[in-house]
């Protein structure tokens, strides 16, 4: 009765031992990797941008420390969504939306800060991989269009986003305090879209990213404006009725007040 399991256990022993060794090696490797990642630490002064009734835009401070020399680049991206770019054309004398291209997964917000201009020293492939700089932002067009048209529409998308204040026009400065400590400021305008943002910090040495860290950041309506928005989306019929009831009573009230005077 007991012989069979014992034999089975003995048979299992060697693979189990090997598995343990492998696991230990993996842990060791991960720990080493952790140490490598530790050459950069960063955090935000706040992980929540709260859109209250009096919201007029805000700044969030990103600060951190690096181990050793190098440049720091900070990329902040907002929630991704599809965006349609339309081109107006003159048709019988008036300007009418004509051609359009839709881009998938366009970040609603893009902010960049660097310790110094990086274009000269860092190969484009590296910037491309980490989407450092608007020129290297990944924007994937849907459908087929000539590369030339896509480039034109892509530039228009970025230009429009910049006009709305949602894409940075030039890189903010990451300032170093001494050799190790750095800080920068991320500006969120009053029209900042809600959602989950990511702030990615890259340490760049000798033309390559040697360390990286990504921190989440939430932009959310809070308090009154959040309740109104939620209400309008969830119970839109009651919201519609409330809106009309408010309008009718305001009109009635005004009529009643001004009759007496």
């Amino acid at each position, binding site marked *: 009765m007991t012989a069979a399991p014992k034999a089975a256990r003995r048979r299992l022993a060697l693979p189990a031992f090997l598995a343990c060794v492998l696991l230990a090696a993996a842990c060791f490797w991960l720990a080493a990797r952790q140490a490598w990642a530790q050459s950069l630490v960063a955090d935000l002064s706040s992980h929540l941008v709260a859109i209250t009734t009096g919201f007029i835009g805000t700044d969030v401070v990103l600060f951190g420390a690096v181990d050793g020399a190098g440049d720091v680049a900070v990329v902040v991206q907002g929630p991704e969504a599809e965006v349609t770019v339309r081109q107006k054309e003159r048709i019988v004398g008036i300007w009418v939306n004509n051609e359009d291209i839709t881009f998938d997964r366009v970040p609603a917000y893009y902010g960049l800060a660097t310790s110094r201009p990086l274009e000269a020293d860092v190969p484009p492939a590296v910037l491309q991989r980490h989407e450092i700089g608007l020129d290297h932002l990944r924007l994937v067009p849907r459908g087929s269009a000539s590369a030339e048209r896509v480039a034109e529409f892509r530039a228009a998308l970025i230009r429009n*986003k910049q006009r709305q204040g949602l894409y940075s026009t030039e890189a903010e400065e990451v300032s170093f305090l001494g050799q190790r400590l750095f800080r920068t400021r991320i500006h969120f305008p009053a029209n900042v879209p809600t959602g989950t943002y990511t702030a990615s910090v890259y340490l760049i040495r000798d033309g390559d990213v040697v360390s990286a860290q990504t921190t989440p950041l939430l932009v959310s309506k809070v308090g009154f404006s959040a309740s109104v928005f939620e209400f309008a989306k969830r119970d839109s019929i009651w919201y519609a009725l409330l809106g009309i009831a408010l309008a009718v009573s305001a009109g009635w009230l005004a009529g009643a007040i001004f009759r007496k005077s």
Partner: protein
Amino acid sequence: MQVYLPIAELSVNALLILGLGGGVGFLSGLFGVGGGFLMTPLLIFIGVPPAVAVGTQANQLVGASVSGVLAHWRRNNVDVRLGGVMLVGGVLGTGLGVWLFGLFQQLGHIDLVISLSYVFFLGTVSGLMLWESIRTMLRGRAKAVAPRKLHHHTWLHGLPFKMRFPRSRLYISALLPAGIGFVGGILVAIMGIGGGFLLVPAMIYILGMPTGLVAGTSLFQIIFSTGMAAFLQAATNQTVDIVLAMLLLVGGVIGAQFGTRAGARLRGEQARALLALMVMAVAVKLAVDLIVRPEDLFSITRPGMP
């Protein structure tokens, strides 16, 4: 004082909105129109998305019309029966308009449709109004003119479904007021206006209604057509911003009271000529925007949004 508008998703100066509401309210009290044709373009101009401007404006107009109709109601200047028939057309028109709005929104042409409707309707109506009021002013100077025939018989009187409207002393086809209401309803939904500037002349010239009853009856009808537009826009398109609507209402009702008082000092044809010039200015501005090459030929939207 900055206030964040939760549906329009932008931050505006509350005093600016109150001021806009007050200014437009003053003009609407002065001329006896809703003022939607001024407010909607102004809202779009300060950055409110067109869909939200139209939806919110419909909601605001409900309040403005209620406050306006009360005064007419007290003087018994509302023909409820005729208003009711217009309303039947108005409800159908609004339903069609909201559907068209959604359709053009998807096609990406809603901005164009809004602009073109403004240019066409405001241009036509203001042109006619200006011509009429100038003629009246000149005629006033040239003394009395031969009185017009009281009752013209045209093909309009041959339409079926005749109905009696004792309050207005009319015996006309129900299709006429219903048709006017229908066109008004479409405009409410697409342009975010009450349509008073179109309904009032139509009721005078097409229906031959007594002038004293026209303002009250059109306002009565507008309450329901804007109310329905506001309901549909909020329920289906979620484009009514209550915070914005309330700010506009507070400014609007106060402005309207002062406007009404100032209006009492204006002569009828002078008021109409001034109103016509104002409406024409809006139409010309929008027409120029359509014709002049835009600064940036490209625009961006979320798919399915204007």
